[in-house]
């Protein structure tokens, strides 16, 4: 290449020298071109032919013609032949054109199957590697595989053909004649004979020790054999047939490929026992026990079991650990050791202390069990009687007293008639009587209830019973007395006071009479027609209340007497007391009907009469009435309903809240202030209500009125002021005054109200 370059440079230098000549040549050619612009067709055709030939043969054209002219004349297509260009290149100092590129390519292609190309630009050879046809490759592969398979098949078939099957052999034997078969038999017999002979010879030559093979297989040879069953499964005197267990061909699996020596020994099993074990295992599996057993630290035999991690998978990973035992000498197994061990274990267990606390672990429940309840409950005392005693009152005892004779009659009947049936009834009565005794006399009866069972003693008991009943009667009298005393307690008290005071002899007499009556009367509550009548009227209730109301009445009367009579206090008191005592005595007295009260004594007496007569409603009475009514009222009536219907009721309270106190202020009854609220603004103007409101509102919101509004307001004020100042007889411009002055000046009683003529004209 360097040489070429040098050549080209040299040619360039030459070209410069020849440039003038070059130009002349060009110009001449151009001239030629222009001269033949009008185009001769023949020339044109000739050129075309030449071009075609060029393309076909790829040979340098020999013609000198270099001008090309398009038929349309739109653009002149100038092209030079290779030779001409080479000449030109030589003039320009360039290397000649490399012509033979295409030929080379073609040759190469022809030489080999591979398509080698020479790059036109760089002149480097390259191969065109066609892309791999994937489907083709795959097909090839498949085909190869098929071939391999077939080959393998053929091989196997050949192998099999060599081996004779049983059938074939048979067929062979069948095909053979009977003679052959006989021959074979003979051969066999001979072989057997020979063997026998050899054996005999062996026996002759060998020592007796060495002839083990012929010895019988005895139980002594079973020593060391392993039996994979729990020894408990075998019982004495029972026959179990054991067979050799199948051995695994591949010893061990997975992790524990190392096997202990025991595995090499023969293992005996019984098929039935194996089945049993499997069945029991299945049952265990079906139970689905929880895998997590945190507290089972000991196995069934009481041995401590270390807490292994996920030991539930041990059986799967390491294979099942089967129980086994080995046969001892002479193929025997001595179970005495086991028995001894068992014994020891039992002993050990018996000595162990059991923790009962652990035994009682169970879920806590909110409710007690029946047993716990029993523990918790105290034994119930027989309280029936006791309770009765406590609440025993005279009123309760009253019917008892009435019952007594009846019971007596019963008992008589009881004696005569069936005894046993009435016994229960009797029991009850007995009990009740006992109670009565306990309550009344205080000494306890010695009668045992168990005695009652004995019917023979019934009579005695009856006697005792009668005695007791008598006692009871007396006791009841006492209590009754006490109760009646209690009822009249207040009255008696009052009486005692009176006695102490010794104010009235008459009263004393009365009291004594009353006391006598009391002592005479055992039944204080005897009812007679009069009292019933009175109760019906309502006097009875009044009597009950009278005691309660007494105090207040007293004071009332006192006040009244103070107001009306203005007597001395002492006198009044005495009188009042007297009245009261009279009343008391009246109330207490046998005569239940009141004496006609004397009205002329005062207003108090009149009021009292009114109350008694029922003209004035008593507060207490009202209450009682309501209580009495409540029993008659509808039972389905509920408070809810009332709320629903009575709207006034509903809103009563809330209305009260806003009403204020309903009671007048007594002390300032005459105080009626005249309140007037006046409002003034900053300038001291009085404001009316509306303005005041606006003003306060402005103040409250902190935002005054606008400028215009204030101005307006001020102007309004000014106007108002002006109006106030303005005289009522004159105009604001004082016209009247001026007129009067004018009159004075003119001394005329009139004024001419016309402008001068001259002005009018103007």
């Amino acid at each position: 290449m360097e040489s070429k370059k040098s050549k080209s440079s040299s040619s360039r230098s030459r070209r410069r020298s020849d440039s003038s000549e070059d130009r002349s040549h060009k110009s001449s050619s151009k001239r030629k071109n222009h001269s033949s612009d009008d185009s001769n067709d023949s020339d044109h055709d000739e050129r075309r032919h030449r071009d075609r030939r060029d393309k076909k043969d790829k040979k340098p054209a020999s013609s000198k013609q270099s001008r090309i002219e398009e038929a349309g004349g739109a653009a002149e297509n100038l092209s030079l032949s290779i030779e001409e260009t080479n000449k030109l290149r030589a003039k320009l100092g360039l290397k000649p054109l490399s012509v033979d590129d295409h030929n080379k390519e073609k040759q190469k292609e022809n030489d080999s199957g591979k398509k080698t190309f020479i790059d036109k630009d760089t002149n480097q050879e390259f191969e065109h590697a066609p892309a791999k046809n994937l489907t083709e490759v795959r097909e090839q592969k498949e085909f190869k595989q098929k071939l391999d398979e077939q080959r393998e098949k053929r091989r196997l078939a050949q192998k099999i053909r060599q081996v004779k099957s049983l059938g074939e052999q048979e067929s062979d034997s069948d095909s053979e004649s009977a003679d052959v078969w006989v021959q074979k038999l003979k051969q066999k017999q001979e072989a057997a004979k020979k063997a026998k002979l050899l054996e005999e010879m062996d026996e002759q030559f060998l020592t007796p020790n060495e002839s083990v093979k012929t010895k019988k297989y005895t139980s002594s040879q079973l020593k060391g054999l392993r039996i994979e069953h729990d020894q408990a499964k075998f019982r004495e005197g029972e026959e179990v047939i054991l067979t050799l267990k199948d051995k695994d061909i591949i010893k061990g699996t997975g992790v524990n490929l190392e096997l202990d020596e025991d595995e090499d020994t023969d293992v005996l099993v019984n098929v039935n026992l194996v089945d049993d074990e499997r069945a029991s295992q299945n049952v265990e599996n079906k139970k689905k026990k929880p895998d997590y057993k945190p507290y089972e630290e000991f196995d069934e035999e009481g041995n401590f079991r270390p807490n292994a991690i996920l030991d539930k998978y041990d059986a799967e990973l390491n294979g099942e650990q089967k129980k086994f035992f080995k046969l001892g000498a002479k193929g025997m197994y001595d179970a005495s050791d086991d028995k001894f061990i068992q014994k020891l274990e039992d002993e050990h267990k018996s000595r162990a202390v059991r923790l009962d606390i652990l035994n009682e672990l169970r879920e806590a429940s909110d409710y007690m069990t029946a047993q716990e309840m029993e523990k918790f409950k105290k034994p119930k005392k027989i309280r029936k009687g006791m309770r009765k005693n406590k609440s025993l009152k005279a009123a309760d005892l009253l019917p008892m007293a009435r019952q007594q004779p009846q019971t007596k009659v019963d008992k008589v009947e009881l004696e005569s008639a069936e005894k046993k049936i009435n016994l229960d009834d009797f029991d009850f009565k007995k009990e009740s009587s006992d109670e009565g005794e306990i309550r009344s006399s205080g000494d306890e009866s010695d009668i045992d209830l168990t005695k009652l069972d004995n019917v023979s003693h019934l009579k005695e008991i009856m006697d005792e019973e009668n005695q007791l009943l008598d006692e009871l009667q007396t006791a009841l009298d006492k209590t009754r007395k006490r109760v009646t005393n209690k009822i009249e307690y207040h009255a008696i008290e009052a009486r005692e006071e009176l006695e102490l005071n010794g104010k009235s002899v008459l009263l004393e007499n009365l009291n004594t009479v009353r006391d006598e009556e009391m002592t005479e009367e055992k039944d204080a509550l005897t009812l007679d027609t009069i009292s019933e009548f009175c109760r019906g009227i309502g006097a009875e209730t009044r009597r009950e209340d009278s005691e309660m109301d007494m105090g207040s009445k007293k004071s009332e009367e006192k006040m009244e007497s103070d107001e009306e009579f203005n007597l001395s206090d002492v006198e009044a008191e005495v009188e009042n007391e007297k009245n009261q005592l009279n009343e008391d005595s009246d109330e207490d007295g046998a005569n239940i009907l009141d004496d006609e009260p004397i009205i002329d004594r005062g207003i108090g007496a009149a009021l009292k009469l009114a109350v008694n007569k029922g003209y004035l409603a008593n507060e207490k009475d009202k209450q009682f009435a309501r209580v009495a009514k409540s029993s008659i009222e509808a039972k389905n009536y509920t408070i809810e309903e009332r709320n629903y219907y009575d709207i006034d009721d509903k809103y009563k309270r809330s209305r009260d809240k806003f009403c204020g106190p309903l009671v007048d202020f007594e002390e300032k009854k005459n105080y009626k202030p005249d309140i007037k609220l006046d409002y003034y603004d900053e300038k001291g103007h009085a404001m009316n209500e509306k303005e005041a409101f606006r003003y306060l509102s402005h103040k409250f919101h902190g935002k005054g009125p606008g400028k215009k509004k204030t101005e307006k307001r001020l102007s309004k004020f000014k106007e108002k002021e002006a109006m106030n100042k303005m005289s009522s007889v004159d105009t604001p411009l004082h016209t009247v005054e001026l007129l009067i002055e004018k009159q004075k000046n003119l001394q005329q009683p009139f004024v001419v109200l016309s402008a001068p003529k001259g002005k009018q004209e103007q």
Partner: protein
Amino acid sequence: MIEITCNDRLGKKVRVKCNPDDTVGDLKKLIAAQTGTNWQRIVLKKWYTIYKDHVSLADYEIHDGMNLELYYQ
């Protein structure tokens, strides 16, 4: 040898035979020899690329039968 067509769209279309290892300057000279213009006034363009004189045609990847635009400065 490759043949390149150069066309100024004013009525001149030149087919030039040259080597791929010729420079653009050489091509211009050949064109100038065929058309009768000053080679220094020739500008060869393909779209907006103006070919420079010192670069070979192969480097510009100008192959056989390509059309170049021919402009004059």
